[in-house]
């Protein structure tokens, strides 16, 4: 190994760290080491639910075969990092061994939020984030007569679907008055409420967790809600969001807020140390984004951008137009641009829902200029490329309405609702402006 060869160490083998490593390897021969305490090999945590449900096996979650890493000379270390020593440019591992680095990238992702609930660390209480959570659920599921899930967001509904796939009754405590209503406007949110009930999930809106009760072996036996109800259960899922996994950096001298503070080049306050993915916190949110973005896509994009910087081509993290997707039980959701749950001052919204109550779209546009701002779509697939271009070119909502067919990404032969949608739009917003 030549002397000059730089050693880049990445803590975390999630999508951010792995994307970074792959893109560095494409352009440089640097020595790359990825350290993870979770698993030896990268896997897509987005698929944890499908393994539990029996749609896939664990190995199917791994996008690269096990020999990929050796072939691309990316070293993997399956250990926990306990400390970072920036001055020495080295890391301490759980077995007290040390690894030195020339450049360090922190990509440690998130941990599930726990808000100090009594009993939150009992056996039977888990988030749904890592492989260990999956293993715990596998262990507890066979003897579980009921599960309670706390937190009405994307992970909560996934966990509910998982447990229902094994016929475990689920009670779903949602703090808000309606499912994911901080993000989804009322129409969509209520549609999902109905769909949750259709899947025989006991949905409790506007209900908070007070306490988790223990049996004599230190395993959860029931939860108490703020409605004074005690619900017997053997599994408690805590899915009230995630926070950056940065506790081990407390004494490192690296500037921390909720996450690792970084600038647009993803640099921390210390030279040669960077942070990407869920654990990185921008000094200020970019455009309308939040300073911390715990999303698959943003993690990937940060990895792509930083790889450029680390191979001699300083590049800011400049995400393009916002997009995201999810699946609520059987209903797919995609979003492009911004649609706010409570419309902003300048924002007008158009909402169409199909009579079967499982398809809907909401388009947000500027009241004055009619510029298209964003779209939520449920049960209808839409083309990313189309909306990315519409947003870049600042097209109007009328343009989008005229080109719905072009925007559609549903499989062939699917019924399209373009006419119905266009008619409703025309009625509500005084005719289509043609271009």
């Amino acid at each position: 190994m030549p002397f000059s060869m730089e050693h880049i160490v990445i803590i975390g083998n999630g999508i951010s760290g792995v994307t970074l490593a792959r893109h560095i390897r494409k352009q440089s021969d640097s020595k790359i080491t990825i350290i993870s305490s979770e698993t030896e090999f990268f896997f897509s945590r987005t698929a944890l639910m499908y393994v539990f449900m029996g749609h896939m096996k664990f190995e199917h979650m791994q996008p690269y075969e096990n020999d990929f890493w050796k072939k691309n000379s990316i070293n993997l270390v399956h250990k926990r990092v306990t400390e970072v020593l920036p001055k020495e440019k080295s890391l301490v591992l759980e077995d007290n061994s040390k690894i030195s680095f020339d450049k360090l990238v922190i990509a440690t992702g998130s941990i599930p939020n726990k808000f100090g609930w009594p009993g939150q660390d009992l056996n039977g209480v888990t988030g749904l984030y890592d492989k260990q959570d999956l293993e715990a659920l596998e262990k507890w599921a066979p003897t579980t007569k009921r599960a309670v899930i706390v937190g009405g967001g994307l992970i909560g509904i996934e966990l509910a679907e998982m447990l229902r796939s094994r016929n475990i009754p689920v009670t779903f405590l949602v703090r808000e008055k309606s499912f994911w209503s901080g993000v989804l406007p009322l129409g969509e949110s209520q549609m999902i409420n109905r769909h949750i009930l259709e899947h025989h999930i006991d949905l409790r809106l506007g209900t908070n967790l007070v306490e988790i009760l223990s049996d004599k072996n230190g395993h959860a036996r029931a939860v108490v809600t703020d409605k004074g109800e005690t619900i017997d259960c053997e599994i408690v899922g805590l899915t009230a969001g995630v926070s950056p996994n940065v506790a081990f950096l407390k004494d490192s001298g690296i500037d921390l807020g909720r996450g690792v503070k970084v600038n647009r080049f993803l640099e921390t306050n210390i030279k040669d140390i960077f942070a990407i993915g869920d654990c990185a916190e921008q000094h200020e949110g970019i455009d309308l984004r939040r300073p911390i973005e715990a999303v698959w896509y943003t993690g990937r994009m940060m990895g792509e951008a930083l790889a450029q910087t680390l191979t001699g081509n300083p590049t800011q993290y400049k995400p393009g137009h916002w997009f995201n997707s999810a699946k609520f039980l059987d209903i797919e959701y995609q979003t492009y641009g911004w649609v706010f749950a409570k419309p902003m001052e300048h924002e007008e919204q158009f909402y169409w829902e199909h009579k079967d109550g499982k398809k809907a779209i909401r388009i947000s546009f500027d009241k004055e200029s009619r510029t298209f701002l964003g779209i939520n779509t449920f049960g209808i697939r839409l083309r990313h490329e189309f909306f990315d271009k519409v947003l870049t070119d600042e097209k109007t909502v009328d343009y989008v309405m005229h080109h719905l067919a072009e925007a559609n990404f549903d499989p062939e032969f699917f019924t399209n609702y373009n006419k119905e949608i266009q008619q409703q739009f025309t009625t509500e917003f005084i005719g289509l402006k043609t271009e």
Partner: protein
Amino acid sequence: MSKSPKNISIASHQDNELSTVQKLGLTLGFIGLFIMILALFNVNFPNKTIWFTVSISSILIGIIIYARSSYLHKPEGINNNGIFHKSLTNRGIFAYMLGILLTSFYVVLYWYPSYLGLGEDGVANSGIVGFFDPFSYFLNGHAASQWFVYGTFYTLAILGLGYKFILKYRNNKYQLVRTISVMFFQLGFAFLIPEILSKLNPDLPYFAKDLKNMWPLNYYFFEDWHLTNMVQGGNLGMFMLIFGVAMIFIISPILTYFYGKRWYCSWVCGCGGLAETAGDPFRHLSNSTETVWKVERWMIHSVLVFSFVTTIAVIFTFLSNNPELSFITRNQFIYGIVGFLVVFTGALFYFKRSDLDADAKYTMLSLVAIIIISIAINFFSGNQNILFIDSYALRKWYGFAIGAAFSGVIGVGFYPLLGNRVWCRFGCPMAAILGLQQRLFSKFRITTNGGQCISCGNCTTHCEMGIDVRSYAQKGENIVRSSCVGCGICAAVCPRGVLKLENGSEEGRINSNEILLGNDVNLMDLLNNK
């Protein structure tokens, strides 16, 4: 207040509970099957027609009842819960038992039909073949053969389990239309029409009457006896000959150009039809590692060369032995083939070399191998001996090894162990040819939806052809693979709406941009210029 079902068991929750109606369906179906088994053991049913009808109907109705109670009480959606937990669909004990039973059935069917009761040398049928006699007389006017029994079961499987498949994917119209299509082609073109045509033309010698079963999948199409029978088969025979040739050289390339090879492999073909219906519960067992992809390339192209050479050799011998029967000489034939392949392969290489992937290169090399072997045949062969091997022995071996052992015994018998497309993936010479067309001359592709892929792997897991779909989707690339049969299941199971089967413009169809939408535009340009 709780809306959830009560569950009072201590440790149940594995998803293998059957509802009462499901049990009823299973009972009915297996009673029907049991009657068949009794027939196999020569139980002499007093009124064969009635017992036969009872047996077939209860199998079909049993499947229908079972399927309805399995899917209709659930909201429309993806129904793959527990497939990797269940013995039958995860290579457990039931899977091995089923695999062994099916394999044994195929061995007996191909090589020991008398065990099924086929009466040989003028003896009347007995056993299960005899049990099918009344139905066979009704349809084609002859006593049943083992192939008639097999064809009936095959059609029954595609119809019954196709109905089950439709219910399973009832949220997806592409699956609905495609499955109705395979059911229609199996029932009409493969089963009823050929039988009825035989009945209407009792005096004609045998030739294949399944319009959709084209060469090289139907490997005996160009064999001397078959050519002769078609030529002597009156208008119907001539029609089958002309249509068969037109299928190969005109209809199939045109359809493949517009729709990809899916028009055949997952819409029309009988092998594909069985794989997509009866084989659906095993699709996730297809291995998607790179090693197996290499094996696939070697095997399918070996079969391709084998099938071409066998056919060429057989025609060559036929022309040598019967110069008076045909309008070309064997020299003209060989050089015609060689000329055609040289022009075809050369043009491919010249115009499409930038689009060649490993699969396409192997197919091209196979064609070159066929050219060389063909020339060698002409120089080193007598009338009968092709390259010192008897051409009839060659075709016998092809029939044994590929036509029977591979496509039947392994192809279907191993569904529960190796997945439902073993034959299509590793052995079908037709799939190799259509695959080359699909890769190089087609509007078909699977489009990736910008940057929406989350690398979850559902697409790869459920791809019956073992294509690592995710490896393309997560890079934002279109999927343009020779082997893709266009079943559309990857797009169906994708939880984020990332994949779409499309026929579109050829420009930009094969893209290898590693950059996904959603990123900074300048960064995208930068990375693409690398």
